């Protein structure tokens, strides 16, 4: 355990959590601690300002990962169907922060994080590709892993494992098995 960079004082709470709670009083859905990682659940509207606050004022300048979860059919009720998850790292203290922005089911939209974190570019494209969440203001929001002509978003719950006929419909198939 020689590489534990930061040890939170359980009585006063970690400084990041205190400052976020003071700044976003009443606008957080939930704040919690998982191990050494602090988490904040917010709505899609609050997420950009929380990310900007974490990056500019609290030193969480490194975007470790950006992904999403479809909470349809999830055992516990969630505030909205999709959760877009940002994992941030503060390089100076080693603190890790998880921000989960809940996005509604119909026409899911969220402001892009690319102006704050350049590394969000491809990650947001991947979330768009597989979950169909539109990141408004993204400089180049198009599919990244699936073929360009793909029509659906396969990591949504309820999408059939074998697809909706894409394997048979694919243009290569049409040319060479037709």
């Amino acid at each position, binding site marked *: 355990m020689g590489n534990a960079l930061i040890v939170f004082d359980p009585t006063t709470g970690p400084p990041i959590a205190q400052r976020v709670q003071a700044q976003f009083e009443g606008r957080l859905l939930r704040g919690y601690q998982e191990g050494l990682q602090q988490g904040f659940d917010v709505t899609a509207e609050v997420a950009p300002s929380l990310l900007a606050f974490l990056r500019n004022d609290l030193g969480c300048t490194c975007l470790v990962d950006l992904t999403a979860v479809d909470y349809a059919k999830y055992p516990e009720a969630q505030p909205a169907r999709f959760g877009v998850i940002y994992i941030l790292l503060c390089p100076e203290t080693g603190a890790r922060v998880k921000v989960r922005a809940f996005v509604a089911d119909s026409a899911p939209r969220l402001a892009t994080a690319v102006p704050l974190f350049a590394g969000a570019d491809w990650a947001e494209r991947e979330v768009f590709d597989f979950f169909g969440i539109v990141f408004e203001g993204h400089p180049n929001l198009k599919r990244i892993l*699936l073929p360009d002509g793909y029509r659906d978003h396969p990591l949504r719950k309820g999408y059939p494992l074998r697809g*909706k006929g894409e*394997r048979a419909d694919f243009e290569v198939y049409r040319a060479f098995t037709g």
Partner: protein
Amino acid sequence: MAVEKPFDITTTTLESAINWARSNSMWPMPFGVACCAIEMMAALMSKYDASRFGSEVLKFSPRQSDLLIVSGRISLKMMPVLMRIWEQMPEPKWCISMGACASSGGVFDTYALIQGIDQFLPVDAYIPGCPPRPEAFIEALMVVQEKAREGKASTQAYTEKAQQV
């Protein structure tokens, strides 16, 4: 008195001489896209040593190779790339489909993966297994060599089908 054949002359056709030479100098184009590629590398490297069969020149350029080894999963997006590579290889050419994934999609019966490359490419030898042992790879190589010696390749049927489209 019977005419004796001089012992240092063998008669053959030019074609079978060329085929014999080809079969013993296969230049593989390794298309390793998943875990099977590890076994392919083992088969090609010194322990199993595919160069015993004349296959030591690994060409990562399709224009200089005549044996395509597809080892791994091919996604819908990768298949056009693989077909382009196949079309760039000069004839005569052969193709080995290595492993369950390349041959049939394997356990990955999903929206993203091609269920068997033989829907698009003419395959000369299939290797079952997940992953196949290098011995199985060598057996497939010998099957392809046998075809090459007989002057056979499944390219012909493929080319005709492609021209019909």
